[in-house]
C-alpha cells in the first residue's frame, strides 16, 4: 500500500525550520512551542497568550486580526467576522464590507498573524505547524484546516485532535504511571470527549465522541435569547449593532458567572439602558437543553472504550467554556469525581500541540513517548442486498472502518456487482453509524468501469485508508487486474481544489494587512470606540473626549508622544471596562 506520508529517517537532528503548535479555536487561537524540555505558549505581539479568532476590515480597507478586530464586532459588525471555524468544510462565504471570504481564508489570516508573532518571539523563521482540530471534525473540515495552513504559508503535515492534545499536556506529568484520562473539551463552537490511556509512555486514545455544533457560543446565544424574551424586544437581534452589543455583554455575563453568583446583561438602547440580572439558577434553566446534549457523547465514549466512570483516573476539563460552573457540576455529577483543570483550560490544547510538535521533531526530551489516536466515526459505503427470491434492496450501509479504530488504519472489503451487465460500479463513501446509507453523511464517490458480465461475477476490492491526520483515501481495484481508481474526494463542495487554493493564495498575498507597528494604536482606538458604544451619558462623553485627544496625538506622528498618551489611555479604558458600577 502506498502511503502519502513519506518514510522518514530519524537521525536525532532537529529539522532546520521550527515546528510550532497552534490551537485554532472558534473564539481564540494560540501558538506554542516545545523547547527546553517543556511546552510553552508563544505570546502575541501584544504580549497576550490568546489571540481572538476574529478578522475585520478597517476603514482604510486594511485587514485586522485579533483583539482589534474583536472590538470592532460591536462597532462595525458588517465589516467583521468571527466564529468562522463553524463554516470550515462548507462553501459558505462571509462578507466583510465588499469582499467575500471563505472560512479557510479567514483562518489563514489568523494563522498568518500567529506565525508572524511566533517568528518575532522565537527569532527564527517558522515553516511548519501542528494545528489542532476537534476530534469530531469531518474529512472536509480537516482538509479545510490544512488548506488554511497552506494559505498562511505553513506546512501542515500533521493535524492533532484537540482532546488528545489536552491529554498530552496533562499526561506528560504522569510519566511512569498507568493512567486513564477522560478529556472533556467544550470550546467556543465544538464539543469533544476522548478517553485515553497512558501506559509505559504510550498515550493511546481508546474512544472519541463529540458534537460539532455545541460550544460556548451556544450558551451565549441562550443568554441573548433570554434577554430578548425578558424584555420582549425581538428587534435587538435583527439590528446588527444592537446584536453585537448584546453579544459582548452576554459573553461578559457568562464569564462572570464562573466566579460569581450573579451577573448582569446590560446594553444601551435608545438613550437608556436595558438590564437583566441572571443568577446561576436562571442560567441553568436557560441552558438545560444544551446541558442535556453534553451527556450523550460522554456516555458513548465510555461505552465504546468499555470503561466505567469509576475506573477513570482523571477527568480533565479543557476549553474556555468548560469554566462554566454549571458545566463543571454536570461533569462532576455524571462522572462521580471532581474534574481537574490545573492547567489553564484556555491553554491546554495549545500546550498539547507543542508537545506533539516536539514529538514530531523528535525532541530528545520526548523520545520515549508514542501517541496513537482513533477515528471517531464509522466509515463505509452503500451496498445492494439480494435475497433468495431475487429481489434486491439498495441503500444498506456497509461499514468498512469501525469507529474508534486506531489510526492509521486501512481495511478492505470485497464487493461484487449487483446487476447483470453492469458497466461501472459506483462506490460512495459515507461517514456515520446509521444502518441506512442515506441517513449518514456522504463524503464523496468513486466510479470504476467494469467489464459487462452476469451479476456476481465481477468483484472489486474497496480499500479505505484513514491516515494519522484523519484524512480518508479510498481506493477501488478490479479484482484480477491492476486497474485501480483512487479517490481524493474532490467533488466535495466544501473543499477547495488545487487550482482554487493556488488562486486564493495569490489573492490573499495581495491583500493589505494592517501593519503590525500600528496595530497597537489601532487596537486601542477600536476598544475605545466599542466602549463609547457601550456606555451612555457622562462616561460616553468622557470617552469621546479622550478619543479626540488620542486622534490628535496620532496626527502629530510623534512616536514618543503617542506612546506616552497610549499608556495612560489604555489604563483609563481598562478602568472603565472593569468598573462594576459602570458595567
Amino acid at each position: 500500500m502506498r502511503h502519502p506520508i513519506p518514510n522518514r529517517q530519524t537521525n536525532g537532528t532537529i529539522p532546520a525550520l521550527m515546528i510550532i503548535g497552534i490551537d485554532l479555536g472558534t473564539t481564540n487561537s494560540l501558538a506554542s512551542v516545545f523547547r527546553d524540555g517543556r511546552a510553552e505558549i508563544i505570546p502575541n505581539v501584544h504580549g497576550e497568550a490568546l489571540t481572538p479568532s476574529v478578522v475585520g476590515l478597517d476603514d482604510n480597507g486594511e485587514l485586522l486580526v485579533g483583539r482589534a478586530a474583536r472590538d470592532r464586532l460591536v462597532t462595525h459588525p458588517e465589516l467583521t467576522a468571527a466564529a468562522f471555524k463553524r463554516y470550515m468544510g462548507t462553501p459558505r462565504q462571509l462578507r466583510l464590507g465588499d469582499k467575500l471570504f471563505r472560512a479557510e481564508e479567514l483562518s489563514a489570516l489568523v494563522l498568518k498573524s500567529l506565525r508572524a508573532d511566533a517568528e518575532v518571539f522565537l527569532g527564527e523563521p517558522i515553516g511548519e505547524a501542528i494545528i489542532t482540530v476537534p476530534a469530531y471534525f469531518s474529512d472536509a473540515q480537516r482538509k479545510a484546516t490544512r488548506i488554511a495552513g497552506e494559505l498562511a504559508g505553513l506546512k501542515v503535515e500533521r493535524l492533532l485532535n484537540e482532546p488528545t492534545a489536552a491529554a498530552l499536556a496533562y499526561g506528560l506529568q504522569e510519566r511512569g504511571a498507568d493512567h486513564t484520562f477522560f478529556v472533556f473539551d467544550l470550546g467556543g463552537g465544538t464539543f469533544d470527549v476522548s478517553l485515553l490511556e497512558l501506559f509505559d509512555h504510550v498515550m493511546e486514545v481508546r474512544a472519541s465522541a463529540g458534537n460539532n455544533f455545541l460550544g460556548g457560543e451556544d450558551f451565549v446565544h441562550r443568554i441573548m435569547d433570554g434577554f430578548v424574551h425578558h424584555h420582549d424586544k425581538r428587534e435587538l437581534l435583527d439590528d446588527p449593532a444592537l446584536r453585537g452589543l448584546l453579544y459582548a455583554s452576554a459573553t461578559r455575563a457568562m464569564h462572570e458567572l464562573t466566579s460569581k453568583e450573579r451577573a448582569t446583561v446590560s446594553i444601551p438602547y435608545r438613550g437608556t439602558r436595558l438590564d437583566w440580572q441572571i443568577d446561576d439558577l436562571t442560567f441553568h434553566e436557560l441552558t438545560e437543553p444544551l446541558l442535556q446534549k453534553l451527556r450523550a457523547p460522554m456516555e458513548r465514549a465510555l461505552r465504546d472504550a468499555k470503561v466505567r466512570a469509576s475506573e477513570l483516573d482523571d477527568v480533565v476539563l479543557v476549553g474556555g467554556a468548560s469554566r462554566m460552573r454549571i458545566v463543571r457540576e454536570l461533569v462532576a455529577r455524571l462522572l462521580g469525581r471532581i474534574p481537574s483543570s490545573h492547567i489553564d483550560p484556555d491553554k491546554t490544547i495549545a500546550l498539547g500541540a507543542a508537545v506533539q510538535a516536539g514529538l514530531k521533531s523528535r525532541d530528545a526530551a520526548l523520545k520515549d513517548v508514542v501517541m496513537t489516536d482513533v477515528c471517531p466515526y464509522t466509515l463505509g459505503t452503500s451496498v445492494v442486498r439480494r435475497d433468495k427470491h431475487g429481489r434486491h434492496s439498495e441503500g444498506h450501509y456497509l461499514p468498512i472502518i469501525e469507529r474508534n479504530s486506531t489510526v492509521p488504519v486501512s481495511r478492505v472489503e470485497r464487493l461484487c456487482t449487483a446487476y447483470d451487465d453492469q458497466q461501472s460500479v459506483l462506490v460512495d463513501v459515507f461517514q456515520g453509524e446509521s444502518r441506512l446509507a442515506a441517513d449518514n453523511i456522504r463524503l464523496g464517490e468513486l466510479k470504476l468501469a467494469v467489464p459487462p458480465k452476469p451479476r456476481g461475477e465481477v468483484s472489486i476490492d474497496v480499500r479505505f485508508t484513514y491516515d494519522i491526520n484523519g484524512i480518508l483515501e479510498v481506493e477501488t481495484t478490479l479484482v484480477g487486474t491492476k486497474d485501480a481508481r483512487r479517490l481524493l474526494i474532490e467533488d466535495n463542495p466544501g473543499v477547495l481544489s488545487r487550482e482554487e487554493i493556488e488562486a486564493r493564495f495569490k489573492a490573499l498575498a495581495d491583500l493589505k494587512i494592517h501593519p503590525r507597528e500600528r496595530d497597537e494604536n489601532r487596537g486601542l482606538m477600536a476598544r475605545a470606540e466599542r466602549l463609547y458604544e457601550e456606555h451612555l451619558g457622562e462616561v460616553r462623553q468622557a470617552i469621546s473626549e479622550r478619543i479626540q485627544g488620542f486622534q490628535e496625538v496620532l496626527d502629530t506622528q510623534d512616536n514618543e508622544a503617542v506612546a506616552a498618551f497610549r499608556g495612560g489611555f489604555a489604563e483609563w479604558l481598562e478602568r472603565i471596562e472593569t468598573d462594576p458600577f459602570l458595567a
Partner: protein
Amino acid sequence: MNVWWELRISPTSDRRAIKRAYALRLKEVHPEDDPEGFQRLREAYESALASIDEGAEPDVNGEHGDQDPMHSSPTPDDVREDEPRKSTVPFLVRPFAQRFDRGDVPSVDPIIELSEVYAKRGEGAATDALHELLTKSATWGLDARHRFELKLAEWLVSFAPLELPWSLVQAADEGFDWSSRLRSVAHEHLGRDRGYLAERLQARASLARIRRELRSDGTSSKRHHMMRLLLLPFDGETLDAERVKLSFWAQATWAEGFRSLVDELDHDYPGVRLYEIDPRTVEYWTRDPEKKESEDLWRGSVILGVVAALVLMLALTGARRLGLISNGVRPWWAEALWVGALIAAGSLTLLGQRRRTLYGLTLMSLSWAPIEMVPGPIVEGTRLLLGFVALTVATDFKRAVLYVFFGFAGSVNRGPFPLIAFPWAGEALRALFRLPVRTEPEPPAARFWTKVGIPALVWCVLLAVLFYVVRDKADGEVRVRATASWIMITEFIGWVARRYRAQRKQAQP
C-alpha cells in the same frame, strides 16, 4: 500473521504483559514512520487482548460482585479528593462536595419498584413510571445510569416474546436509543440472551411497517388480506368465521399460499413471524384442512353419485324405449331425482377442496347431457343455480356473475348467435318467468355447419377471451383456470352434442 511474534512475547493471558510488550514494540514501529508495520502490530495487539476476553463473561451485574449496585452513587466520601499539588482550583469558589445532591439517585432498586408497579397496576402505569425514571436518570452519574440500563434490559428480556410489554420497551428505546445501537445493545448488555432485545425491536419495527402498508392499501389485494389474517390473535371462533368468508378456491389453496407468504415475511420483515405473530394462528392457516378419511368418504360419494346418475340415465332411456314414459312427459319423480342428484353434487362441491371441485363440476357437466332427455324448467333452473354456486365457491363471486351473465346473454339470444350459450338457461328462465318459449324450426342438416360450425368457432374464440379474462396469474391459482376451462369445455361439448342431435333429429323424420 503470528500475533505473538509481532508482539515479541510468548503466548500469555496476562493483560499487563501484553500491554507492556505492545508499548515496547511501539517504540520501534512508529505509526508516523511505518504505517503498515504499525497496523500489523496493532492488529496483533488487539487480537491478543481479545483472546483473553473470549473466556470471560460480560460483567452483567456491573459492580464487581457488589450486591446492590444501585447504592454506588457518588457521595462526598467516594469522590476523589484532589491531591495537594492539584488542589489549586482558582475557578471554583465553593467546593463541589457541598453541591452533590444525593437525593436524585434512588435508594431502592428502581427496577424492583417498576416490576411491582407493572404487576399491580399494569402496563400503562408502569410505562408512566418508567418515563419518570428516565427523566430523573438524566442527572445521575453515568455509571449508575449504565447499570440502570442493564438491569432494565435484563428485566425486559425475562418476558416471554409475545407477552413483552411493548410500551415499556419503546420507552426504554426512547430513553437509551437502543434501536440505533441494535448491534451494540446486544453485544454490551445481554450476555446469553445476546440479541434478543435487538431482534425484538427490529421485529416491532417490521410490524409497524406492515401495519402502515395494510392501512395505506386501498385495493385490498389478496396478499394483504392474507397478511391481515396472519396477524389476527388466535381465537378459534374468529378464525373460523374468517375462514368461512374465504372463497372456496382460496380455501383450496390457502395452506400453500400462507406457507409461501410466511416465508416471504421472514425475509422482508425479519423477526415479525418469530415475535409478533401468534404461532397458533400461523399453524391454523398453514395446515392443510382436509383429513384422509373424509377424502375417501368424498371419493366414495362422488362415485356413488356418478353411478346413480348413469343408472338413472339408462333407466330413463330404457323406460322411454319401452314406452313406459313418452317423450315430453316428465314424471315428477324423475325430475325430483335429477334435482336431488344435482343438489347432492352441488353441495358436495361446497364442502371440499380442489379435487372435490373438479369431481363436483364433472358430475354436473355430465348431468347436463341427460337433461336433454328430461327437460324441464325446474331441473334446468336448478342446474343454472348450482352451476352458479359451484363457480362461486370454486373461484369467486365475480366470476360466477360472469358465468350467469354469459348464460343469460346466451339464453336470451338463444340460437345461432351465442355469446357463450347456455341454451338450457334460457329455457329455464322463460319457464320461471312464464315467458313464451320461442320455438324456431330446427335448421336442416345441410346448414349444420353454418348453424353449428361457425358458432362453434365463435364460441372457441369467446371461450379463449373469457378464459383470458378469468385467468388468475398468481402461483397456485392455475387450477382456477383449469376449472373455468373445464366448465366451458364441457358446456361446449354439451352444446355441440345437443345441436348435433337436433340436426340429426331434424334429418330423421
